């Protein structure tokens, strides 16, 4: 039993790390640029379709993984210049409507180009199979690779934000945009750069998800909602918050799915326990967010002094 608990905990961390890959870009764009980009999930989908196409054509997962980054960045660049840039000074609501329109456009365009059937992404040979962890249970190598890429992305972001000049500008901009602008920072360039970096993380996550999930139109939207939950629990604009929020969501969701049925089974008959547990575990992360926000109305790691 304790072995299963540990394995499920690890599964939770793995899910959390995956959510972090997508949330990191979202929280950067939201926190620094003050832009609500609903089409962040579409960038995730573009990453996944890119790897399906490129690795299908070249036969190599790795070429696909590397090339999906510039492809997503290019898509993001077009979106930023044409649609996001005119919206910097506009209300959040206008951004919601415009990026909603963008989702419709990208989803339907993808359907027209790629058809309605889900795409195939092959598992890379080097990462297929399982390893035995702690001499007790076997764990899929690919899931460990997702955890590793989450850690790498977190480390890169931590380095950029705390150790570089750009990072300082980002931190300052997240707290107060006007002051940074008055200090003569090229804010337009910085905006574009951050949007591209955020998009590339989403694309990377989409590509990493390819071998494990169904690559299909609309794959980004449900994930987007989950990622908003992560960054809001953590506190918008905070990378540390996004990491913490994503891990919390991953662990709560996984543990709920794993153990609620048996816990409820102690009180109820198995059939209704299973149904109620499934309902409750679907609600669990939303319940978590409500509890966090009622107790801490600006998330767990609010960016100090941020005017939201």
């Amino acid at each position, binding site marked *: 039993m304790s072995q299963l608990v540990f394995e499920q905990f690890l599964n939770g961390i793995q899910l959390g790390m995956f959510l972090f890959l997508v949330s990191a870009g979202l929280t950067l764009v*939201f926190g620094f640029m003050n832009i*609500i980009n609903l089409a962040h999930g579409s960038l995730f989908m573009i990453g996944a379709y890119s790897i399906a196409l490129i690795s299908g054509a070249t036969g190599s997962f790795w070429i696909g993984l590397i090339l999906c980054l510039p492809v997503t960045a290019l898509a993001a660049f077009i979106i930023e210049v044409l*649609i996001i840039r*005119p*919206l910097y000074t*506009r209300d*959040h*609501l*206008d951004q*919601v*409507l*415009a990026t*909603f*329109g*963008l*989702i*419709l*456009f*990208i*989803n*339907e*365009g993808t*359907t*027209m180009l790629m058809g309605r059937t889900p795409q195939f992404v092959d598992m890379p040979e080097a990462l297929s199979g399982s390893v035995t962890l702690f001499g007790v249970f076997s764990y899929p190598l690919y899931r460990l690779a997702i955890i590793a890429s989450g850690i790498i992305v977190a480390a890169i972001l931590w380095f950029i934000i705390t150790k570089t000049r750009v990072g300082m500008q980002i931190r300052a901009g997240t707290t107060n945009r006007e002051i940074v602008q008055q200090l003569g920072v090229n804010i337009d360039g910085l905006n574009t750069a951050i949007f591209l970096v955020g998009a590339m993380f989403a694309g990377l996550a989409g590509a990493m998800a390819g071998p494990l999930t169904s690559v299909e139109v609309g794959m980004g939207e449900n994930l987007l*909602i989950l990622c*908003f*939950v992560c960054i*809001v629990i953590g506190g*918008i604009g905070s990378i540390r918050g996004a990491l913490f929020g994503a891990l919390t969501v991953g662990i709560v969701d996984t543990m709920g799915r794993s153990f609620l049925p048996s816990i409820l089974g102690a009180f109820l008959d198995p059939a209704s326990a299973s*149904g*109620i547990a*499934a*309902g409750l575990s*679907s*609600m669990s992360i*939303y*319940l978590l*967010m*409500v509890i966090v*926000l*009622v107790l801490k*109305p*600006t*998330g767990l790691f609010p960016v100090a002094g941020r005017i*939201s």
Partner: protein
Amino acid sequence: MISERHLPKLMALGVLVLLLLPLMLNASGSSYLISTATRLVIFAIAAVSLDLLIGYTGLVSFGHAAFLGVGAYTVGILSFHAYEGDTFFGLPGTLSGLIVLPLAVALSALVALAIGALSLRTKGVYFIMITLSFGQMLFFLFVSLEKYGGDDGMMMFDGRITLPGLDLNDRMSFYYFCLACLIAFFWFCRRLVASKFGRTLQAIRQNEARLSSIGIRSYTAKLLIFVIAGAGAGLAGALSANHTEFVSPALTHWTRSGDLMIVVILGGIGTLLGPVLGTIVFLLLEEFLPLILHSVGLDLLSEHWRFVLGPILILIVLFAKSGIYGLLFRSRE
């Protein structure tokens, strides 16, 4: 652009058009469109109620479809028990509109009171997300109501609710009933936003901090408007259930809350009339864009009409500062 001075006249004209609409549709042999018009009217009630929050109080609720669901399920569950002839917690089911509709509105208001009381502790984006959460929780609650069809939803086998002297199963009567609800609710909202309470709300939207510094308790005002908006959406939900004679959790899905937000923003927030226009444009595009594209020979795009709708929405955002309302009307000041 038209000056806002002409607004009252134009609105009277609009009401006249809406009143004559079924007659004109009947005369032109397209009475099936009355059903589409009814759907627009019902959706407009929900959109207007959301505008009270987004436009007048600055509260962006991303869970407004939850109240549609509460209203619809009230109707659906009572109809279900009336059909089965059994009881619900000891109470019999009923189709009597005089009981069902007030109950649907009251229950929605009650749920809004509970959700609002907790959600209003947060602000801005956090408010968006906490209302989304409540909406999702209600969605999953409805999905797990196995007795009432779960995810598949339930049909109202006995047809629509009954009202004395009015046969709601008749398409014309039902349209006029829904229209009466819209006009009454719209009129109520206009009076509300023009009242002292309405000015308090506007002040909250513009500068909440200042308001609390002069001792006005914004929390109570916000909670009250949240409850009123929830009740309005509950009414729309109850009507919607009667319109399709079918209730399912799809009504409370987050994409439905999203659609509501979209029509309010598209129409122009803080105008009440805007959301009505937004509803008309959005739902008509959704229904007729494929047909229009087909009739001009763009068959590929007719099947993929969202590929056209997306850019239309983006262009409206980029070039119309306050939605469709802003395109049509020139502000008085």
